[in-house]
């Protein structure tokens, strides 16, 4: 297949709005000389980008599904009818699996990561991934309050910890080490929390600082393609930008990715004095190396908050008065779910909205900061085009600022920011940057050897949101899966796993059989759940 005459933005290969033809053969981008299938897509006047690479979203597994079960009112207002190529489903903030695949693809996204899988429920996450069509996908494995991680951190047994991390990634068929409120999730199992990097975890003589350092070092020494993926302590609380900054700084020189950093960039003493810490966080990012983050941009309207951060969800339940689900997982982790609505006229919500944009706009290197809404925590993923428009147009930001709570103008520097994203910048924060941070060498660019995952848009500067909402074409593995914003093919993507291998020691097996309620032999996720897998080598 040839994509002819398109205007290509491929920042990873320094192509910035040039007319370049792209050649596809057997699902890969190839040199013209290797082309056999001469089918053409005429793309003159269209913008050609690598397929979108989502770095952090909640789309599969137990907490997502508890949210679905808990929120029938969310589904009723957004239904998806079956078509010859599409299964039916429902939205709105917690869409069904098939609908998730279609909506990402319609927007031009072709790779999607479920950012929090409890190890004991990993089989569930993978089972749901089997019903998410089109996109490539995989899971991050939750480890920040795992019993063995805490035990080995306490005992100073780093090699054992590293071996356990490798085994757990192998057993769960996970791709990255996810850390949520390190130590706090274990403390929540007794109704407590931690509030600084040096607090002691209930019943364990370890601190969040030690957990983070150990896991960061393990991820680096195991040569995992992605760094540790950190949801910091004190998420959601006024004044938490300080702990976020400290986390970024103290983890140097290890690689680290701070996720949905908007929720962790708050200044002020309490809700009354709540103010943005976005510019401070951006400054920290600007001067730090080996760090990436995604923003978790707020979208006004309905959201469903869901995270392994159980204590925060309890706080949010009390703040909102909405229904609350909690789900603690033995030996490992937990989860909480609370429906939430972000309102333009609510001062805190409006400042939260400004913070995500501040961090995206004030961080100089777009390879350090990525666009997410921490779907569905700060809003549904299919509203990304709304954010893209705000990033690319200062005028649109000003229009939006007029509609939100007026205090934003005093408590955020957003109104003074002049920067407007170029298409290249946008391609970095949604594709090239995320793929690089994830260590996915065949994604996020259009060079020879890359996967033929491509999105093509009818780009109109006056209607940026509309331009990115529905791709003119989405091509996955060389197959046209979306045309004019509509799914036109039944296609299944791959699940990404690592080639890490490790065994449990006899002692670990004994602890396992004593304190888990499943047999260790029944714990690892079987190959049956990975009918189409892509194994990534760690080196």
């Amino acid at each position, binding site marked *: 297949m040839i994509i002819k005459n398109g205007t290509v933005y491929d920042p990873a290969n320094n192509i910035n709005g040039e007319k370049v033809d792209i050649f596809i053969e057997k699902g890969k981008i190839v040199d013209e000389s290797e082309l056999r299938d001469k089918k053409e897509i005429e793309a003159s006047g269209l913008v050609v980008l690598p397929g979108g690479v989502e770095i952090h979203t909640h789309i599969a597994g137990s907490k997502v599904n508890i949210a679905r079960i808990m929120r029938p009112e969310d*589904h009723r207002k957004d239904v998806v*009818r*079956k078509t010859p190529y599409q299964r039916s489903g429902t939205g709105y903030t917690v869409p069904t699996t098939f609908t998730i695949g279609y909506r990402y693809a319609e927007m031009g996204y072709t790779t999607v990561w479920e950012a929090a899988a409890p190890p004991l429920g990993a089989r*569930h996450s993978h089972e749901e991934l089997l*019903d998410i069509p089109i996109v490539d996908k995989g899971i991050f494995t939750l480890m920040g309050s795992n019993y063995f991680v805490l035990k080995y951190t306490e005992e100073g047994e780093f090699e054992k910890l590293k071996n356990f991390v490798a085994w757990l990634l192998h057993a769960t068929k996970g791709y990255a080490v996810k850390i949520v409120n390190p130590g706090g999730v274990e403390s929540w199992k*007794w*109704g407590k929390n931690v509030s600084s990097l040096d607090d002691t975890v209930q019943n364990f003589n370890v601190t969040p600082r030690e957990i983070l350092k150990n896991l960061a070092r393990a991820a680096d020494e195991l040569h995992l393609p992605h760094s540790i993926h950190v949801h910091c302590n004190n998420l959601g609380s006024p004044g938490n930008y300080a702990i976020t900054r400290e986390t970024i700084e103290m983890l140097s020189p290890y690689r680290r990715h701070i996720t949905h950093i908007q929720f962790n960039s708050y200044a002020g003493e309490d809700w009354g004095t709540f103010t943005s810490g976005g510019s401070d966080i951006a400054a920290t990012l600007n001067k730090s190396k080996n760090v990436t983050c995604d923003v978790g941009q707020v979208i006004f309207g309905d959201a469903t908050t869901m995270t392994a951060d159980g204590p925060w969800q309890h706080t949010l339940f009390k703040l909102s008065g909405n229904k609350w689900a909690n789900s603690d997982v033995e030996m490992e982790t937990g989860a909480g779910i609370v429906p939430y609505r972000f309102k333009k006229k609510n001062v805190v919500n409006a400042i939260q909205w400004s913070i995500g944009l501040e961090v995206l706009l004030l961080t100089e290197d777009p390879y350090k900061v990525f666009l997410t809404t921490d779907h569905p925590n700060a809003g549904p993923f299919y509203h990304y085009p709304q954010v893209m428009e705000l990033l690319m147009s200062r005028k649109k930001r000003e229009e939006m600022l007029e509609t939100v709570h007026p205090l934003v103008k005093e408590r955020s520097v957003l109104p003074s920011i002049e920067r407007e994203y170029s298409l290249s910048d946008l391609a970095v924060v949604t594709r090239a940057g995320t793929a690089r941070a994830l260590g996915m060498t065949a994604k996020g660019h259009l060079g020879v050897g890359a996967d033929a995952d491509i999105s093509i848009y009818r780009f109109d500067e006056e209607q940026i949101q509309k331009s990115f909402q529905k791709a003119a074409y989405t091509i996955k593995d060389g197959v046209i899966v979306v045309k004019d914003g509509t799914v036109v093919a039944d296609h299944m993507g791959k699940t990404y796993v690592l080639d890490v291998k490790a065994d449990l020691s006899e002692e670990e097996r004994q602890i396992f059989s004593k304190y888990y309620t499943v047999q260790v032999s029944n714990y690892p996720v079987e190959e049956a759940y990975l009918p189409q897998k892509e194994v990534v080598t760690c080196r």
Partner: protein
Amino acid sequence: MIHEDVVCPFCGCLCDDIAVTTEDNMITDVKNGCAISKSKFMNHHLNLLESALVDNMKVSLDEAVGRAVEILTNADNPLIYGLSSTECEAQRHAIHLAELLGATIDQTASVCHGPTILGTQDAGCVKCTLGEVKNRADLIIYWGCNPAEAHIRHFRRYSVFPEGLFRKSKKEREVVVVDVRNTASARIATTFLQIAPGTDFETISLMRAYLKGKGDALPDEFKNLVERMKRCEFGIMFFGLGLTMSRGKHLNVDAALRLVRDLNEYTKFSITPMRGHYNVAGAGSTMAWITGYPFAVNFSMGYPVSNPGEFSAVDVLARKECDAALIIASDPVANFPAESWKHLADIPTIVMDPKVSLTSRIAKVSIPVATAGIEAEGTAYRMDGIPLRLKKVVDTTRLSDAAVLSRMIEKVRA
């Protein structure tokens, strides 16, 4: 040959430490399982549906599947029901089939913990996995359930007796049973509190009021219980059909969910429903991730709509709204009020089951299938949402539910 760590396909405990011995493709011994588990494994070959049947005449599997598809595609409002005693792969196919047919699909939760789901949709649910209970619980309450007879190894594996990380034995735990009758489970309890039938809601509401500093009318023994609930380090309430099936139904559960939620102001407290069939949690799970709703879903308009009371099987049958039915791994004739299952005898009913059931006795089409978890692999979800892999320990020539359903899908699409 001994198959170790087999997952038991009977109840929501989903014990995964069963050792099954087979000789010449026959199960000859079962270790670790409870009485019912043993019976399920040892007797799985008895009372089998020997052949596919149409109008009680033996036919080939293909013919039976063909007839079933003909009936279902010609129907104006078909019903698919069952699902809780088969593997998730079959459930996913059944949902796909329902979508293609524009059918109503419901699973056995609607006559089991359906009200629990309705309560959760109103109040949320503060839950945990069973290992959290084993490792941490110092106060365990069983309310309106009788695990000694229904979830036989629950006490031993998950709650009262096992050694956990922070609780070493039964001595470190307090066990309270609340029920309308003195059950076998009540005998294990440190405290048994008997209440009059149909007063669960009143009792729990008064407990909640007492927690808020009101509720003087609460009997002293329950005031004492509330105090202990506030004081414990990690509390858990298990509840069963005593709440969901008696007057008040979802409101009884709603009150219990709110009580536990409110207790988290004082300490750590969780609540978990005692799910009955081994994969009823899986049926809710698969339906939720594909349709958004865990039960009582209708596809007649080409997209999923759910409304228990409208699209739940008992109601659809009682109002005689369906004109064909496909029953998968369930026996509504044994389990539904007689007045509602009568309609199944009036319409063409198709049954997929390994065994002769009361429903297969009145069915127009019967399709024998492999027993999931004994003769077929697949996924099942424990009562607390933990997924485990069911094993195949003996071979059979019969197809799994998933394979039969996938043939039906092919034929419907053709």
